[in-house]
């Protein structure tokens, strides 16, 4: 853990070497990503709800997913950019060091400019919460925190699986974006607005539904059982096969090479 924070510090140091670039990128990130929030706002000036979800409810869902995604872009950048590590041959170097490979990949890169998105997501989250009349109690606070954590966890898992793809080939990397970016865009809306097939897919294959649908319903009082509030915990189980897949890929790498 100490190692991870130390390398984070070094990445920050390296990024700050290019000061102007850092500031400009930071600002542009803020601008670009507010536009995606405006899309939702524009949508709701036409319709006052989507399948029973109001604008602030969707924004709540949206910001949680954005938060999880941006969090990984900052703190697990190395996994997102894993193809670079393989192509440049730097992955070999990691294999020569006596630490867990996933930890080292995490240490290998980070992108502090994207903290802009985290900040945005938090701002939008606060705005959404203030405009929703949620009957708060301890359980609901826990649910909200779990939703945020599980959003980070689920994208970490997805990034990990996407990274494992690089052990097999570094061509056609767009395929993995279907699951990372594509999944993100789907999950920004409450899964319930989509048809049944999608709900099943995003419950059992990629469990977005446990991040921002079932707990959301509980939070909004549309479902009563607190079990739904705890459903984000299931996402942690999802992480296990993701890690196994990654290590399987690694084994293949060391027998095939690049």
């Amino acid at each position, binding site marked *: 853990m100490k190692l991870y924070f130390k390398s984070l510090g*070094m990445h920050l140091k390296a990024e700050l070497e290019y000061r102007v670039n850092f500031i400009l990128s930071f600002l542009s990130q803020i601008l670009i990503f507010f536009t995606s929030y405006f899309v939702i706002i524009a949508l709701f000036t036409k319709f006052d709800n989507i399948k029973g979800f109001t604008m602030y409810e969707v924004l709540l869902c949206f910001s949680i997913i954005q938060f999880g995604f941006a969090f990984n872009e900052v703190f697990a950048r190395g996994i997102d950019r894993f193809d670079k590590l393989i192509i440049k041959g730097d992955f070999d170097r990691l294999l*020569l060091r006596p630490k867990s490979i996933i930890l080292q990949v995490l240490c290998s890169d980070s992108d502090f400019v994207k903290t802009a998105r985290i900040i945005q997501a938090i701002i939008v989250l606060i705005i959404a919460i203030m405009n929703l009349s949620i009957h708060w109690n301890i359980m609901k606070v826990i649910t909200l925190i779990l939703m945020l954590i599980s959003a980070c966890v689920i994208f970490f898992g997805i990034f990990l699986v996407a990274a494992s793809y690089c052990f097999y080939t570094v061509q056609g990397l767009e395929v993995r974006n279907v699951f990372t970016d594509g999944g993100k865009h789907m999950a920004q809306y409450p899964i319930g607005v989509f048809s049944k097939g999608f709900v099943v897919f995003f419950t059992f294959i990629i469990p977005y539904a446990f991040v921002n649908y079932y707990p959301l319903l509980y939070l909004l009082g549309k479902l009563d059982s607190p079990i739904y509030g705890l459903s984000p915990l299931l996402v942690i189980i999802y992480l296990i096969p993701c890690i196994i897949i990654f290590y399987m890929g690694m084994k293949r790498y060391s027998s*095939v090479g690049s």
Partner: protein
Amino acid sequence: MSFIEVKQISKTFRVAKKKSGLKEAFKSFIKREYLDVVAVDDISFSIEKGEIVGYIGPNGAGKSTTIKILSGILNPDSGECKIAGMTPWKERVKYVKKIGVVFGQKSQLWWDIPAEDTFDLLKDIYDIPEEEYQATKKDLIKRLNLEDIINIPVRQLSLGQRMRCEIAASLLHNPEILFLDEPTIGLDAVSKQLVRDFIKKLNKEKKTTIILTSHDMSDITTLAKRIILIGKGKVLYDGSLKKLRDKYDTETHVNIRTKDKLSIRKKGITSKNKTRDGYELVVNTKILSISELLMNLSKKILIDDIDIEQDTIDHIIVKLYEDYKI
């Protein structure tokens, strides 16, 4: 049991066959043909603690693959390998603490920050105790002459400076074995000399076992007493440099400047060429000694100038490659 034991290691890569042309591209899209490329074929050798071994061969001979197997990055298809009692690719985390690897063509230093920051990070990666780390770092800074460059962002360093930092980074954890993959590539004469001297001292004082690959034969001659030559994935020669010299270094080029006409036919002279201002003779010194040749020549012609040139190790290697058809 030697310190490094490699037994019958083989490694084959599957490479997708690619032919040129759009039609072929479509064909291979539907049905891929694979080509098995044997990178390393039944290689065995053993190395004792404290040896410096030059591992040489032409491009694509399997040098890098062997280094990757020995350092635990790749696992071979078959064969055994025990280094310091461990199998590299099976006990990765424990094993890599004992080795240091320098890739001349790849950097392990962070590009945008000073080398010292990378060193600090390596301290945590290898869990080096603070005291030991400070002592080793100080020692390396002194030996590799790094005081002035250690605080400059790596991207601003010259290649020679960077390579010195690179070597220091690989030695912070006091490895027992050091793999050097073309450590002097692209360096100027002064940097080369510095790196070589350092490696020599390191081996002498710390008994570090060193495996060195290089295309620069003077690296090999100054550092390694023993060489292993591989070609097409097989070990072709394993032994002392001196023996190799004795075996192959029998030809001597004699350049004579003279205005006279020379007609000489003697056993031991393998070729005679007329040059612009004289003759070039290639002599097999095992049959005809140089002094005998000179005596003979001085009787026949007036020699203005003479230049005797022994085969360099580069020539020997080229000859070796030719002999083995690689």
